[in-house]
Every structure is written in C-alpha cells, then in structure tokens.
C-alpha cells in the first residue's frame, strides 16, 4: 500500500438533499481559488450501502478507497426503523501528486435515509451518479441480500460487490447469494469478497502444485475448516478445486458429521468442519501419496511427500480486498464455475 497521505479538502458539509450538486460545485470553486491547485478526479461512481451499525466503518473507508480509486463516492446509510427523513453531506478527499503542488481530489456524498428507503435511495443514487461513468455498488453485510434496493440497483449498475458471505458463514448463505447472482442482468458483474478472501488459499494450492505435479493421480481432497458447520469458504474452495480438476459430481452424503461429495472416477471431496483452530486442505493421491496446504499463523505450510516449505500469507483486510475487487471489473470465469458447482451441491448437502 502506498505511503501517500490523503487529507480532506474540507470537513463534511451538511447540505440540503436537493442542492447536493450545487454544493459540490461550490466546494470545487472554492478549492480552485485556493493556493494549492486541485484536480477533480473521477474514474467511476462508487456506491457504498450499509445500515447505521456500519456507518462509522464505511465513512472511514471512503478516504482509504479514494487513495487508490478516484471516484464519486455515494455512501448511503439506511435506517429503516426510523420515521421517513433524509440528510446529506458533501466532502472531498485529496492526495498530493508526487513532486507537484497539485492535489488530486475525489468527492464524496453521504446520504442518511430513514424510513422506507428503497425508492428514495434509488432515485437519489441514480440522479447523483455521473452518467458517463460506470457504477460499482458495494453492499455491506449489515443489510440482507434480499433487500429490494439491491435488486433495483442490480438492474442499473455495472458491478456489485457484496460482503455478505463471510467465509465462516454457513454454507446455506451461498444459496441467497446465488439468487442475487442469477437475478441481475448479465452485463452487471456480481462478486463477493469471499472469492477475493480465498485468493490466498487458491494461490497456496497453485504454488503447491507447481512442485507436486501429479494432479491426474489425485483421488481425494479433504478440506478442514473452522467452526462446527460447513462454511461458505470451505464449500466455495472445494468447488473451485473440483471444477479446476473437472471432477464430475455424482452424489453428496454425510459421513458422520462430514459432508462428502462423490465424483466420477472414484474421486471425492470431504469437508471436515472440526472446529480446530487451524484449517487446511489435504490431497490424497493413488499409492498413498499425500500433499497438504496448512495454515499456521502468518504462513501456509506446503507439503508434498516428505518435502515441506513455508509460503507467506499476504495479510488481507476488507480494504485490501475491496481495493483489489475494484481493480477487476470483468467476470471471473473461475468464480462463475465454482459458484455454480457449489450451488449444484447445496440441495443434497443441506438436506442429507
């Protein structure tokens, strides 16, 4: 991450909702007349939606994201249990260009919408989004994925990033997410931070098989996960492995407390929700050979036969994951395949 400092151009100014654009113009005019020149930069519209419980964290995220993604940010805070009301603030965050006096600034609009929100919020988001630019919506986990506002936004935006499927959330969560995934038009790309979160594991598995190349002799994969239930993270990871290996699904069953996916050619995936503090993936080959990726603190231990080596886990937080996701606007076919496969398994896994 850059060491560049981001500073507010002005503290958030409370404004009349109907005069947001005028207030922003005023903000820029005043900034232009200051002794430090500013450039108003907007690469896309970024709409962050959360409820009041996540408001503070979301506000803190705005300047951090602006450091990497210059956008027009619209933070929408919903408080549906309060009587109908709406309030707005405008502000901008700036970073200095290296070796120059000029500042690059991104504007932010904060909307608090109380009461029955979806129609008012949708109309405000539409009117405040810059029409010539793409729009990304980041939907916070504090709000349900079935919220009508999300469904509405899905019809008009280019990108939705949900943070709903925490990697430790129960696998059933993936079902709701898949419904959203299927309901938006094909030109809108939907992802969940869960997929980005798994990038460390995916990278470690890929690294393991750089040195342990007998993929065709792989017969069983055991995915150990924390908690006592099959988690979204474990399920999606398993689906990624199975889809990468092109294993064809045959049936799902419970072996004791362990969900098992049987595939063609006697290959299978076993999920082991043991509640153990460490988690990992074991690979069993023909002729009793094994390999494994085990998470231990800030390292993955990659074991292939008798040889073990460590690989550093890159620290990830919501900001890093979001920043990464906002760089990638295209559909990821690997995620598509994995999500569809996991969704195919779900009915049998959940009801056996």
């Amino acid at each position, binding site marked *: 991450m850059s*060491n560049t400092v981001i500073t507010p151009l002005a503290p958030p100014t409370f404004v009349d909702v109907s005069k947001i654009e005028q207030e922003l113009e005023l903000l820029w005019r005043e900034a232009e007349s200051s002794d430090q020149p500013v450039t108003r*930069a907007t690469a896309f519209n970024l709409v962050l939606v959360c409820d009041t419980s996540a408001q503070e964290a979301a506000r803190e995220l705005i300047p951090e994201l602006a450091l*990497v993604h210059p956008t027009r940010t619209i933070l929408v805070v919903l408080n549906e249990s309060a009587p109908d009301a709406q309030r707005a603030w405008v502000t901008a965050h700036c970073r200095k260009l290296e070796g120059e006096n000029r500042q690059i600034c991104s504007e932010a609009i904060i909307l608090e919408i109380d009461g029955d929100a979806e129609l008012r919020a949708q109309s405000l988001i539409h009117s405040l989004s810059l029409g010539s630019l793409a729009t990304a919506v980041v939907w916070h986990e504090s709000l349900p994925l079935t919220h009508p506002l999300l469904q509405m936004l899905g019809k008009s935006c280019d990108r939705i990033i949900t943070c709903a499927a925490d990697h430790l959330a129960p696998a059933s969560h993936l079902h709701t997410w898949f419904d959203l995934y299927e309901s938006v038009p094909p030109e809108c790309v939907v992802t969940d931070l869960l997929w980005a979160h798994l990038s460390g594991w*995916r990278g470690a598995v890929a690294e*393991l098989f750089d040195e342990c190349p007998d*993929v065709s002799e792989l017969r069983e994969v055991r995915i150990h996960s924390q908690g006592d239930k099959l988690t979204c993270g474990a399920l999606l990871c398993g689906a990624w492995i199975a889809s990468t290996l092109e294993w064809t699904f045959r049936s799902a069953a419970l072996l004791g407390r362990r969900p098992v996916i049987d595939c063609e050619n006697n290959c299978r995936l076993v999920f082991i929700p043991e509640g153990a503090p460490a988690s990992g993936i074991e690979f069993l080959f023909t002729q009793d050979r094994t390999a494994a990726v085990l998470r231990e603190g800030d390292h993955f231990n990659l074991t292939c036969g008798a040889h073990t080596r460590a*690989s550093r886990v890159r620290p990830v937080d919501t900001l890093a994951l979001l920043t990464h996701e906002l760089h990638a606007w295209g559909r990821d076919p690997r995620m598509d395949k994995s999500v569809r496969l996991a969704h195919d398994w779900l009915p049998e896994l959940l009801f056996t």
Partner: protein
Amino acid sequence: MSNPFRAGMLMEHPADPCVLIIFGGTGDLAQRKLFPSLAHLVSEGRVSEQTQFLCVSRKDSDQGAFRAEVIDNAKKLAPASMPNDEFARKFADRMFLVTDSGEGGRFDKLRSRLGEMAGAGGPRNHLFYLSIPPTGYAPTIAALGAVGLANPEAGAWSRIIIEKPFGRDFASAEALNSAAAAVFREEQIYRIDHYLGKETVQNILVLRLANTLFEPIWNHHYVDHVAITAAEILGVEERAQYYEESGALRDMIQNHLMQILAMIAMERPSSLAPEAIRDEKRKVLECVRPIHPEEVAQSAVRAQYSAGAVAGKAVQGYLQESGVNPNSRTETYAALKLHIDNWRWSGVPFYLRTGKRLAKRVTEVAIVFRNVPHQVFSQSPVDRLEQNVLAIRIQPNEGISLKFEAKLPGHALHVRPVEMDFRYGTSFGGRLSDAYERLLLDAMIGDQTLFARRDSVEEGWRIVQPVLDNWAQDSNDLLPQYVAGSWGPAEADLLLAARQHRWRKL
C-alpha cells in the same frame, strides 16, 4: 501435465526462490535502484520468503557494515521502500556479502558460497546481475561458465541479467552476445533496458491492442510522422568518464528509444507470449531503412551543450564539466530521422531525439496525424487547423493525451486545439512501481517479454552504426552547440524542416 490450479492466476505467479547475486552490489545502481526495488518487492510479498541476496564487491567491507549501508541508503533515497525498522532488519538479514579482492579463484569462492547456501536449505536457483562496468561483462560471464555456475543443477535454473550498454558498436555488441552465448543459452540471458519496465511503455501494447479506436489509424494512411523525445535537464553529473566513451546516440537512442520505436511500430503479435512480442520487435527493426554514409548529414544531428541556465540555475557547458576532455567531441544531443520500409509505415518518418541539459525533463512519443484531406473551413475565419496528436508520456506525469480541434464558444467560427488528457496519477491511485521492480520480478519469474533479445540489440546497432562511423571520421573541430536549458541545436529543427515538420513544444 501443467498445473491447472495456475489457470487465471498467471499475473500472480510467485517468483521461484532464488539467490540474486549482484556483481557491483556496493555500486551506485545497486544502492539507488536495485535494493530499494527489492525491498518493495519483499514488502509486498512478491518474492519468495526464501530468496536471498548475495552481493559480490571489490570493496573490502564486512557484512554488517554493508547491510547498514544498504539500509541507510534505501531510507535516504527511497524511504517508502523501508516502512519500519523491523522490516529493515529482516530485509538486511537476507543480504550477504562476498568480497572479491581480485585474487585468483574468486569465482570458486562464489561457487562454494552458493553451494553452502543451498546445503543449508537455501535456494538452488541463481540469478546473476551484472551491475559492473561493461568491460567486466565478458570476463565475468566467462568466469561464471568456467566454474560451472551457468549450468544449473537438475530442477533448478540459472539466469543472468546484463545491464546496458550492450556493446559500444555493432561489432562489440556481437562479440559480447557471442561471449554470453558461449556460456548461457539465450533463454537464460536477460538484457535489461529499464525503459521497457516503465508503466507507460507497457501501456503502449494495451493502447494499441485493447482499443478499437487506434489500430485502424495506426499506419501511413493516417499517421503523418512519429516523434520520440527523451529530454533530460541533468548534465553528465558523476558519469563523465562513462559518458565521454558513450555519448547520446549510444547512451539513449540505440537502446531505449529504439526499443520504444519497436513497440510503437511493430505489427500486432499473435499472442502475448514473450517470443511472439520479441519476434515482432525484431522484424520491425529489420525494416528500418539503413542510413547510407552520404545520407548521414540529412538524417542525423549531434551537438554539445554550452553554458546556459536550467530551471533558473546557471550551468556550465559540457566541455567545462569535471572529467570531460576540453576537446571532447562526444555528443550530448542526438537526433535521427528514420524510415521503416514496410507496408504499414511507408513514407512515415520517425524522428528520435535525446539530449542532456535540455529545457525540461520529459520523455514522450508523439503520433502526429495527417491533416484532414479537404479544408472546408478555408473560407471561414479559421486560418489553419493543427494536426491531431496522440502523445504517450513516459515520464514524468505518465499518461496519454489526444489533441484535437474544437470550436470556440461564440457566434463566429473560431477553432482551437484542445486536449483530452489521461494521467496515471489522476485516474489510478496507489504507487507506480519502479521499472526495476517489474524487471527484477520478471527475471525471477522467467518472463523475458520486457528484456531485449540478442537480435533486436544487434538490429539497434545496425541502424546507428553508419552514423557512428560517419561521426567518428568527421574531422571538424567543433560540434554544433546548443545553450543549456534550450530545446537543442537549430540543426535538429532543420532535420524536420524538409517535410514541414516541427518538434513538438513540450
């Protein structure tokens, strides 16, 4: 069977663990560029945890002092590369020093040391980096071969990065390449041209191949001429000894500008595979029309800076610089007019210029488009239309701008050129990686795309050789002069005048 789990993760391929052996590890380039770049790569987790750095130096120093010097310099020259003391300490722990006092058997000593490192569980892959004076290249390569370090153990690799200059003329480049080829295979050799690691240079490919807009007009039907400029405000600084032997043509045009020309002018590669791109670069350089001896005066200009002022500060002329021969005939400015004899670029001149102590530090490629075929505005107050220009700025303010004509608001028809401007710093936040970071990582990964291949280096020399030969024979006492802080000699303007072209104001 290849690793299916890598699919879609090509950009995230981690570098194999290796020992990076830097010859000249206490030198200026290593301290200013290599170590800060390595520190950035380490802090971002892009190089393996097991990778170690072994510096070979002629300076007599102990490891502790060497580590302290590297960290101090990195903190001073690239503070962002050393985020905190804890990181600095861990980074220093990965650096080792082999002092090479010039006694016989020093490469045996290096081999033993690498053997010890591998024996202690360290990496068996070796990446050699020649950050030493060019006269040391061939002997070092030969010595590495003699002690068997060019041939990796089974399952390991051995690569070598060679810094420019790759020779000082066609014959010496060929000799150096042959010396390298006698020890290393071409796929082990990484000729580093840091210009190719710059973000905007890499963006040339994306601009051309990922947009519908540009490729259809990227040819002689629409392009009037192309001008590539690399202007510096600095003089020779501490490099007078090197520069006296080199000059602007060898130092900048034969390598950096020629590689940029190749990226601009090459045909579309069939894929992004390194060899596909490098093949196209070689092909287009082969199409550059040879400059015959009698044409040199019309195709090339050289000059030296005289005393003047740069950025408001008085500076002395080249001949007065410390370490420069007062009768030196080394050029500090060079400009070339080249033609590419192929279907795409027939009749389109490519102008290349570079110089020290010019008015501004700027490197850019300007694609200047033809005028519209019919001037419908000729009976209006519009006196003339300017040509559209697509400018690719390589440094500073990396970005791309497009200049076109627009009507001025008002009742009368007045037209003015305006610019659409894309700047990396404005559109994308975050830190732009230094070119050396990208190139060091690519060498560790084994991706040669951004490194010059033997054939394109030799083509570069073939193109400039007649000019070098002609200049070497020219017995005029004084080179043309330009005032420090100006845009170069008047002769450079004349180079373009025959076609009513002008250098862009930058």
